[in-house]
């Protein structure tokens, strides 16, 4: 309990520092101006959500191979946290796109692929709510989790291929990132990853408690 409290405090502090750095330390970008600062939230969230989905995939494969419930908990916890970060990406993207591109949504390859990714994992969570038996649910959702993750590169590939056939808005001109920007960015990335680890851990413990409760209830019924 104390350990969780300390860890939560540390993550909050880190996020505070990262937010301060993103607003006050990082230099203002020359062409895009202030609105570019949303990248310090947007890009780390995107990378973190992909990492969370990767962890979910590992959990799914491990569950199928070992049948240990803890792997199912890992899979569902990280999928949920992944969706949360993915939602942040999908919300902050249009906020930046409106002033930069002039539209909220551009059907750009990465944007569209992220939306499909989000839909896939929402379907994963809905599937879980449709099954009562925990072992069955774990097995079936692990299977779908594997399918969803395998689909990701194909979704990115096909949409990228499809959209690059059309004229595209120019987002970045190539060039090296300013060293201060790079440092602030890394700090933001670190804080997002720590937040992800914290959330997955909390969610995992919730699943553990649920299982404990279920076992106790069963024991009570048996008496």
């Amino acid at each position, binding site marked *: 309990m104390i350990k969780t409290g300390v860890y939560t405090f540390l993550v909050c502090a880190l996020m505070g520092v990262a937010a301060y750095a993103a607003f006050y330390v990082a230099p203002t970008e020359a062409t895009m101006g202030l609105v570019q600062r949303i990248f310090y939230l947007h890009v780390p969230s995107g990378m973190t959500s992909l990492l969370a989905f990767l962890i979910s995939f590992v959990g799914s494969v491990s569950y199928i191979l070992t049948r240990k419930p803890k792997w199912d908990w890992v899979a569902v916890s990280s999928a949920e946290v992944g969706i949360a970060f993915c939602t942040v990406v999908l919300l902050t993207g249009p906020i930046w796109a409106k002033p930069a591109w002039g539209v909220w949504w551009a059907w750009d390859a990465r944007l569209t692929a992220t939306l499909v990714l989000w839909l896939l994992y929402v379907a994963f969570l809905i599937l879980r709510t449709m099954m009562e038996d925990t072992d069955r649910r774990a097995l079936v959702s692990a299977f779908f989790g*594997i399918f969803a993750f395998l689909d990701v590169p194909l979704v990115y590939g096909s949409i990228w291929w499809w959209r690059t056939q059309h004229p595209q808005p120019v987002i970045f001109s190539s060039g090296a990132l300013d060293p201060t920007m790079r440092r602030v960015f890394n700090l933001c990335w670190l804080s997002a990853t720590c937040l992800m680890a914290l959330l997955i851990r909390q969610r995992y413990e919730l699943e553990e408690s649920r299982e404990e409760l279920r076992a106790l209830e069963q024991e009570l019924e048996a008496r």
Partner: protein
Amino acid sequence: MGLLSNTAVLLQKEIQAEYRSHELLTTATVFILIVIVLFSFTFDPTSAESRQFGPGLLWLAFLFSASLMLQPCFLKERANDTLSALRLAVSDPFAIFLAKLCANTIFLIVTELLLLFVFAVFYNVGVLPVFPQLVLVFFLGSLGIATTGTALSAISSQARMREVLLPLLLMPLLVPVLIPSTEATKALLEKDHALRWDWLGILIAFDVVFLTALWLFGEYLLEE
């Protein structure tokens, strides 16, 4: 009995069942027909426009009808608990999947080809010069739909709200089938009738990835 002979027997069973009932093919064909007719009310189906939008509409209709067709795939085995019998009968559980997905691919292609001609007539698109190439695109696309659809039908047959669940799980997963199939069909129907191997490559990759995944993990779905 090996995997292939098992599959052949089960495939024969699937086709015979469909041959006797005609349930799947009739409903799916009529369904796509309705969709194609309804589409024509949403925009002006002139020749130039239909070449642009037609393939997309066609593949969307295929996708929706596939999600209808794949629904009963495992559900019908639950009615008399014939799935347990199937599991006992075969040496490799993958044969059950393989037979079902082959049958589904065949059913899908048959409906698609039937509707292709209706589409050609309704929207004034010439399909005969590129017919063999279209069959190739339809085969690769249908194989992808059938592979993922058969697996997800095994999943959804075990859940509540299964009728709604299957399209929900299947549609986002099939984005990498919808885009290449549509684009490849579109390229074939355009003036130069180009067969786009880059799109076919994505379809082949999809088929290979999901067939392998089904082969590796599919048997776990059939456990009691």
